[in-house]
Each structure stands twice: as C-alpha cells, then as structure tokens.
C-alpha cells in the first residue's frame, strides 16, 4: 500500500523535549564522579538520628520529590507511540507536540488527588489528507487511558487547520461508543497494539 506521506519531516530524538536534569546527570565526567565519591556523605552520618545537610549543592538524588502529572509527562507517555506508517515515533514526526497538550486544572502539588482533571491533546497530522489521523488519535487515547489514573478524562482532537476533515475526525474520536466499537475490531486492535509496542 502506498503511504500517505512517503517523505515526512523527521526530528532528531535528542532534540525532542525531555526532562533536562536527567540528561545532565548522565553526562558527568569521570573526574567529577571521582570527586563525588570523595565528597559523598559517609554512611555513619546517614542514620535517622543525624540527617545533616551534607553537600552544598542542592540535593538532586532524591527520587521522591512530589511532582504532579504535567504536560511533559503526558508528552513522554505518547511521544514514543509508533506511527502506523513509518518506523518512527509520533514525537519524531511532530504529530504530538508539547505546546499542544493542555491539562486543566493546571497541575499543582497541592491538588486533591480526586479532582477531576481533563487532558486535552491536539495532534498534528503530517499532511492535511492523512487517512490515518483517526487511528493515531485512537492510539493516543488508548495509551493515555491505560496510563493515567481514574480521575483523568482524556480528549484527543486534531489541531485546528491541520486536516481537511478535522470535524469528522474529531467527532469520531469524541464518540465513546464508536471508540469502544473500534477497539472490538480485531484488525484495528492489531494496528493499535503494534503502535503501542514501543511505549515504555
């Protein structure tokens, strides 16, 4: 089958938005890690009785900081979905973009975990007549529904002006019954599973 867009623009994986601090941590020089080893807090000072602040750098090795689910996290969940046509991710093809993800009410640490939260993702098909826009939208929706907690509602839409039939596609994606019916379809389910295989 011919591809709708045989030659899409591809972004470099290293240029996609991601959490910066992780990258920084990974690229530490060997000499710096030796220095860290010298300056580490000794075990005898890490007991519950003497929890003194040791290093003058801000302690970033604490994995347990309270952070709400934000747009970047939603982006990280869906940007690794594979495109149904190309061996590339939706992030690389710029089908999903960080500025097109909206969470309301906006994420905050103090929010009650039972507050109903709405996530709206606007996807940008690579070409205006893309026939697979619905499948991609469905993929994003399935992924988020499987990954977000029960108090999150997911809406997926085509970004305004990026598809010739965006109204129709949006209608399909918003219709719960049609989404449920689509997921019953074995062929479609196969395509979706393939797309979500690359998500970690």
């Amino acid at each position: 089958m011919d591809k709708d867009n045989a030659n899409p623009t591809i972004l470099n994986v290293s240029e996609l938005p991601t959490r910066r601090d992780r990258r920084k941590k990974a690229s530490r020089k060997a000499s710096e890690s030796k220095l860290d080893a010298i300056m580490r807090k000794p075990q005898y000072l890490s007991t519950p009785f003497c929890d003194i602040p040791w290093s003058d750098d801000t302690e970033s090795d604490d994995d347990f900081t309270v952070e709400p689910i934000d747009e970047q996290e939603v982006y990280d969940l869906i940007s690794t979905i594979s495109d149904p046509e190309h061996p590339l991710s939706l992030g690389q093809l710029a089908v999903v973009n960080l500025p097109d993800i909206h969470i309301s009410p906006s994420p905050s640490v103090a929010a009650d975990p039972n507050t109903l939260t709405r996530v709206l993702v606007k996807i940008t098909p690579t070409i205006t007549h893309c026939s697979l826009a619905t499948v991609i939208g469905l993929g994003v929706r399935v992924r988020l529904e499987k990954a977000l907690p029960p108090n999150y509602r997911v809406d997926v839409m085509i970004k305004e002006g990026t598809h010739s039939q965006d109204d129709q596609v949006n209608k399909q994606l918003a219709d719960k019954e049609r989404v449920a019916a689509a997921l019953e379809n074995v062929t479609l389910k196969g395509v979706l599973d393939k797309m979500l295989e690359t998500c970690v």
Partner: protein
Amino acid sequence: MAGAGFNELALQYVLADEKSEERTIAEKAAAAIETSANGRVAVGQWVASINRWIQPADDANDDFIARAKALGFLSSTLEILQEKGFALKPEQIKLLVTFFGSLFSSDHRAGITASAKALRHLTRMTTFQPSLGNDIIQNACKLGDDFKLQTPVTRLELYELFLGLLQDPSVVSDLGHQHGNTCGFMISLLELCRNERAPLNLIKWFATLEIFLQNFTSTPEVTSEVFKTFSAYFPISLRASATSSGVTADDLKTAVRSCFAANHHLAGLAIPFLLGKLDQGDAVTVAVKVDILHTLDACLTKYDHPKQSVIPYVDQIWGSLKYEVRNGEIQDTIKATLKVIGSLIRRLDGDELQSFLNDAWRDLSDDLSNPTYTAQAGRLLVSIAGASPQSFKAITPQALSHIHSSIKHTSSASHKQDLLTLLNSILLVRSHLTDSPELTEAANPVRSSNCLEDEKFGDSLFLEIYLPLWQESPPSSSLADHIGLIRKVMEGVATLVGQRSTDTNPPHRLCSDSVCEQIFSWLAKPAISSPIEAQKFIESITDEDTNQLLRESAALALKKAVPLYPPAFQQLLLQYLSSIRSAYQLQPNSGNLISEIRLVASSLCEIASSELLSAKSRLAYSMLLISTLMEGLLGMLSEQAPSRYWTAFVCSIHLVISESLASASYKGAKQGPPRTQPITDECYSEFIGRIENGGVVELGSNKPGNYELMSQTLERLDIDEADVPRHALAYFIWVTKQLYIRFTQAQLCNDRTPGQWAIKLSEDFSRKDSSNAVQQDICLHQTALLATTVVRSLSLEEQIALQLDREAFSLFQPVATPYEISSLDNFRTAPLSMGVLQGLRLRAIDREGHLMALERLLAVLVVDTAMPFSDTTRAALDTILVILSNRLDTKDRIITDKKFEMELSIMAAFRMHQNRSDTSSTHAPILIRAYCSILHYLAGDISRFIPQEEYNALLNSVFSLGPGDIMVGRQLAQSLGLLVSPKECLDTENHAIRKKLSGEWLFYQMVSPRIADCFPDDPNSMVDERRAVNRAVATFAILQHLKYDHYAGDLERIVRVAIRSLSTFKIGVEMESCLIVLLQTLEGEPEKLKEHLPSLISGLISVYDMARRVARAADFMVDTENVKAKNREPSQCRKLVLEFFQKLPASYDSQHLWPHRHLLLRPLWAACGDPVREIRRIALITRQTWDNLA
C-alpha cells in the same frame, strides 16, 4: 622377530579398533625392526606381512578397508621409526618409495592415504635421497583426475607431502637441477591440484605455491601459470559450514596474500591485477576492497628490488588510490588506502621519491584550496608526510606555505577548520617521526641537523598561524564554527609545545619559553581562570554546554601539553591561586566559586596523574599541587572565610592523594602501594626534614610556600622510581599531620590530672557564629576521611613505627595525651580521631591503650544524662566504638577477660538506666541513644564474632531488654538493625576483621530463637500484643540487612510474621524493612510465598493506601524541611509494594495470579496517579504487566 611375528602384528593391527591399540602394535613392529640383527631381512618380512591383503580382488570381494588398514600398519610403523630418529638404509627407502609410489597408480581406493603418510615419514628420514623427491611427485601426479575424487582428508595428506618436499632445501636443489627453469614438476602439480576447495587443503596448497615462488627460478610462463592458479581464488571468502575446519576466512586471505607477495617477479602480474580489481568501482564490496588494499600493501612492502618491482607502477598505483581517499566514504577503505600509500613511499628513494612527490603535490595543492576536498587531501598529505623522514622533509615546506596562505585567504570557517586539522596532524606526525628509531639512533645516517624542517615548527608557526586565529574576534553569526576553530587551535598548540629538534646534539624544544608561556596562559583561561572567576571565556556564548565543551578541550590540551613543558605546571598552579583570590575578593559568598575550586583542582589532578609522566614526576607534580591547595586553604583560613571553603580545599587534597595512590605505578592501592622498603621513623623524619626546608607550605605554622625553592627541592630529590611510593606516602602522612595540627590545639587540663594535655579545636573554629558549626563539622569529617585514606595504605609495621595509635588521640600535636577522646569543645575533635583509627590494622593499637579508650568511650556514651555533643559528633564517637570493638585482639586472653568484665558493667549500667522510674519524654531519647551506642559496640563485635555462649551475654541481653521494654521498646527494636547495617568502618578496605559466617551466626543464635515471640501468647493482652509487635519490628530490622541465604532456612515462620506485620507495622522504617524482606524472598524462593498470595496481595494493597494517606497527612505540615524527610519513608513503602506486584507475574504461572488480577487492577490504576513521578513510572509498568496477564 621372525616373519610370523610381523604377520601376527599386522593381523592385530588390521583388527584393532582403538587408535591407542594401533599405536602400541606399530611401536612393537618398529622396535622389532630396530633391534633385529639383520635389518634387511626384518624390513623384508615387515613389508611382506601385509601380503595377504595387498592384492586387489575383483570389485565384489575387494576388502579395501582391510587393505587400507594393512597399509596403515606400514605407515604407522614408519612414523614411529622416524620419530625415534631411526633411519632405514637408502636402498630400503628407495624400495619403499617405489612400492608406495606404485600404489598411486594401482590402488586408488585404499592405498592413497597410507602411501602419502608413509612417504611423508620416509622423506623426513636422514637417509632419504633428494633425487627421490622428483619420483614421488611424478608418481603422485599419476593420480590425475582421480585426485579430486579422493576425500579432502586424503588430499590433505598429499598436500602435506608436497609441502614437506618443497620445504627440504636438498630436494629443492635437486628438483631445480633436474628440471631447470621449466619446472616441469610444478606444471604437473598445478594440473593435479586444480579446483581445490577444502579450506585446510588450500592453506597447505598456497603455502606450497609460496615456497615454490620464493625458491625456484622459473620461466615467465611457469610463473604466470602459478599466478593464474592462486589469483583465481582472489578475493577469497569462506562459506559457513556445519563442520568447522578450524580455518577462518582471514587465514585464507593471509595465505593468498603471501602468494601475491612471495616474489618480486610477480609484480608485473600482481600489481595490475590488483589495481584492475580495485578499479571495478561499486561492484566491489568494502570487505573485498580492504582485502585488495591489504594485499597490495603486502606486495609493496615485501617485494625485493623496488626499482624493477615497484617503481614502474608508482603512477598507476597513485592514480588509482588517490580517488579512494578523495571520493571514498568508508573509513576502513580509506585507512587501508593510506597505509598502502605509506608503504609505497617507503620503497622510493632519491629522484623517484622526488618525482612522485611532485606529481602528488600537483594533485593535492588544488584540492587543498578547494573547501570540498580539503579534508580528504589533508589525509593523503598526512600519510605522505608521515611515511618517512625523507618524504616529510620533501613535502612539508610547500604544504606549510600553502596551508598558511589558504587559511589567510579563505572566508569559510569550515575550510579553516579542515586546514587547521591538517596542520595539527602534521605536527603529530612530526612528533611521531622524531621518536622513530630512524631518528633516535645516533648513528643513523638519516639523522641530520635539519631532517624534519626544524626551523619551520617553532615560534614562526605559532606566530604566523595559531596566534592570528586565536586573536580573531568571534563573528556575530556562526559562533559554533568559531568555537570549533578555537578548539582546533587549542589542540594544535598543545602539540606544538612538544616539537623537538632532530640534530645530533641533545634535542631541544623548538618553541621559545616565552611562546610556551603564552600558550599556557591561553589554555589556562578557559580551563582555570574563567570558571573560577565566573566569567565567560567568549562573551557571546549563551549556552552552558558550549562553554563546558571549550573548557573540556582546554583541559585536555593542558593534559597533553604540560608533560611536554614541565615548567608550565607551576604557572597553572599560580594562576589557579590568583584566580581564587580575586574571585573571593569580589564575591565571598558564591556557591559557584566553592564548587569550581574543587572542579578545577580535579582537572589539575588529572594533569598531575597523567600517564605521560614518569612516576617520579607524578610525585613531584602531586606534591606541588597539594602544596598549592594547602596554600589556598591557608589563604582562606587567614581571610576567616566560611568553612565551606576549607572543605573544598580539603576534598581537593583528598582527591589528589587518592588519585596518586591509585595511579598506575602503585597497583593494588587498596592494600597500600608496593614498597621496596617500609617507612621507618628515621627515614620519615629525614625526608620530611628535607621537604620542610624546601619551601613547602606549612599550615600549622602559617608559613606560605616558596615555589622556586620547592621546584628546586623536588628536582634535587634523589629517589629511585621504585622508591617513589614510599616517599609519596610519607609526604601524604605529613600533609595529614599539617591539616590536623592546623585544625586543633593542645591545652593543659589541670582540673583532672595535673600536667595532663588535652586537644581542642583551633582558634579557626571559634571565630564564627554557631550557625557555621554544622559546616565546620563537615570540614572535620572530610579531613578525617582523608586521614583514613592515607593511614589505611600503610603496613602494620609502618603504623606502629609512626605511633599512629597515639596520634589518633593526640591528633599529631606534639604532646602526650591519654588514650581517650578529648572532651574539650564538646568532643568535636572526635571525627579526627575516628579518621586515624579507621585506617589502623589489627594490633596497631597498644593493648592497654585500646582497652582504656574503649572503656572511657563507653563511659561517655552509655550514660543516663544528656551529653553535650551534637548528632554528628555522636555518630563519630559511635563509629569509634565500632572500630575499637572490631579491632580487639580476641586471641589475647587478657583482652578477652577484660572485655567480658566491661560488657558486664555496660549491661548493669543499661539495666539501671532502663529501670529508672523517670520515663519522661526527656529521658526516653537518652535511653535510646545509649542503646544505639551499645549496638554500635556490638556491631564491631559481631563482625568478628566469638561463637562461645559465655562471650555473648551482652548481645543476648540487648536482644531481650530492648524490644521487651514496655515504654520505648518499639524505638529500641527499630534500632536493632544497626547491628548489621552496612558501615564503611567495617569494610575490608579499612582492614576491618570480618568473619564470613557472621550473618548466619547472628540469625541462628539471636533472631531465629525469638521468632516465636513475634506472636502474642495471649491475643487479648495489650502488653503481650505490644511486645510481639516490637519483637517483629526487631526481627525485620535485622533481616533487611542480611542476605536471603542467611535466613532462608526459617522462611516459613518469617513469612507468617511478615503477613501479620503488614497490618501491625507503622508506615515508615518498620514497614520498609518488612517489605524489603518480602521482596528478597520473592526473588529468592517464590514457591514459599505461593500459598500466602491472597493475604499478601490484600495486605500490600492496604499498605499502599495507608502509605498514600500518611504522605497526604504530611503535606499539611508547615515545616517544609520536615515534609521532605517525612515524605521519603511512605514513598519508599509505596515503591516497594509496587515493585513486589511488578515482580509477581515473572515469578508465577498466570493461573496462580489470575484470581487476584481483578482485585489488583483498580488499585494499580489509582497508583498511576501517585504524587511521586518515579512511583508513577513503576505503577505504569506494573499495571501493564498485570493488564497483559495471559
């Protein structure tokens, strides 16, 4: 032996099944021949013994297997005879050769293998006549087309026979004599061995051809025939086969390559053939192309008489090869091509070389001016220049002037970068040639005053090319290109510094000192001064990564260049100090400055421990660097700077010391460097005396350094390479001493014993407000860690010779103090004592002193009143307790008795303490702390436990009294983990005494007997219930630190306690320990948990919910610092619960899990909304695993 005997042996041989049996029989026959009085008759009978098998019958009855075996009998006997060095008579050999030779034409089915083998052994006998070689070949060639019908193994025997013959010089000369240059025998062989395909056979066949080509003068026709034979296999490859022959494709390639390179007469055939293959363009794969190039390289390197074999093809070779580099894209091909060009040039001389270089330059000069091809032309030029000193001298003058003018005129930044890369490579090549044997051997005629264009590679190159580029102001656009260029300049000047002259006088540096200094001041800017002074090296750089890139390049360049110009190191150190001074004056409270002090010190440390330096220079560099850091520390102390600055310098000194100890020449640094002689008190004093008079910084006496004097002292130090580690360690001890003396002072304490000295902190510590106390403590702890690194590297004799056990308490002050931790300044010097003690070996501490120290420390720590020391000081004191109790020499009866007494009194003290009626809120923490100190004491003891019951009374009572306490039992139980929790002071690196079975011993002696108490006797009694829970808390506090194998034997009961504990433990350390044990069990033996899965899963789900509720409650607390600490424990519990769920599907078949799936999916879904991102990640993975449960 009579004929009948041989007949018998032959029969046995034919009937034998085992190889060993066959050999025994053949040995018997060989012995019979050797010992027979009449050799001729014996040999005749031996040959005749196989008569009954030898006549081929008609096809139907032909037992050729038996016949082959019978012939094998003869060949095996010959093999043994030949091995023993027994030679048959020449006429016997002749007869046998005729006999076996006839089999080639008469018995193709059974005779070939045995004949070939037999002939091979005959040819090796000393009495073998060379003229028979020709007969053998002629006979073998009679096989004709039947040769290829033989099995590969049979053919291999024949190839080995031919190869053996041609390796025999007498046979070679006879063949040459008989056949002349027509070499008829070879033509027959070529005819016979056509179409060989078996890899092992080919290897032998190619070797035969190679020997032929090397040893025979043949007509061009014959040479051409031979060439056709082996070149038909080129390029050779090997198909994957089920039966591996042990030959690789590379073996085959090498064998064919040797044929190509065997004789220069082949040049006319081989070189055009190879070039023809190469010029096929895209039809040739990369692997084949590389093979062709390697083969060509072998030819060019090995052919004799280059005037006839190489020179006629120079133009043709250059014509083909230059395009491989110019237009090539594959690195492997380009690399191989450049190697060929190098080999080609090395075969040229005089006019031929000059004319080749002229031609090549004509091609290259155009390309160098063209930005598209500069990089490729550069590679060609470097390979030409680097081939030999002659080619370097011939081509570089024009190349340099061309590069110079191109850099000046080009406007493209990338073109400039390419040209600069080329120039840098020429410099590298020149350094390489200067070190080549051709130029280092004084007698070599090539060596002359200017054979590598000395005058062009000094200051002039710097001034004409590098200086203008460096001074260019960065363009507003394409900043990245400019940075690339600057990095290339850094790389280039680092190599330029090392350029040396080639004259016969001792070689000297080509750059003047002033240029070298300028180069180092350039490089120091981005690597040292800019980061410290928080300035940008290039103003317009906005991006931190780019800045970092420049800094790393400069540091790398310095690392390469400093060993080439040693005076620079001192310059860099002074720059480091002056930058710190000026930065501190501007911004005394900058966090950045503190971290840069350490980071730049670590770059300087890398330079000082560079592998390019000799061990002696490394020592000198490390000493200079440490001295500089001490000078920096001295400056900060006199400025009364915040103690975080002191810590930065102390850590940097520690880094230099540990790098120096670990560097290549001191292998096995953990056990201390290998030393020819130990450090004694005398040699230490003598060496340090020299150092102290040599201009070093002295912290104690506020004496700043004198760098000139220091450099001179270090140069004059007369130390053998092997003796460097000893002196290094002596210096490091002195440095430790300096730090200790600076941070402390002695004071007379007449209140207790008149005239007794005690140690307190120095004035430096009293000058600041108390909010700085924590930072000061950190500095003291870091100094202590440094002391440990130094002390543990010493041997026992050295530790005793230097009286380090005393120094641990006097802290290197020149006064006598008792063996106790000084109580002045609220014991704040404790970490310093701990630092020294932690590195001491068993028996390094005086026996009396050891016990005294232990006793007095316990008296301070196990008390029922609040002590004035801080938590960190208490941690250091507790650690000293661990160390002292661990290093007790339990083989010493006096010590063990005393220890026992001491433990009884601790026990009594604690009991009294515990029974005090005052259980107010102020008393409880004191009791807990005292209990923890006892646990620390026992932790050292358990690590090298004594199994006898009577020695463990204290341990027993700690287990009974702690969790049994009705008021604070729960907290005491939580602390029990201290007994086995990981501690650095108990690392073997720190010479701690550890017995392997201590974990198991503790479990079976103390924990296991008390597991039953984890269930209440009377479920309705609150007291009973509380005690049972405490006991469970204690159990898991210990188990979490043990290995799974230690407690696996009692798992059933442990799992039951764990399930009960899921509902009785608080979310926090208690629950954490229980979850850790459950996880370890799941990983170790999932079967044991199988029957408990329903209760485990439901229990864990409620633990997760509870942990989330606890965290939410903590959010409402006002104190933010506390929220963080409070948050950690519930988060850890939630993480462990989810990890447990995540591991279940991998541990059990799905039918066991399916019933729980429904129960679990909803909580997992909710867990995807956990407030902590890391936990959400685990929840998501777990949810997916359970979702996909088949």
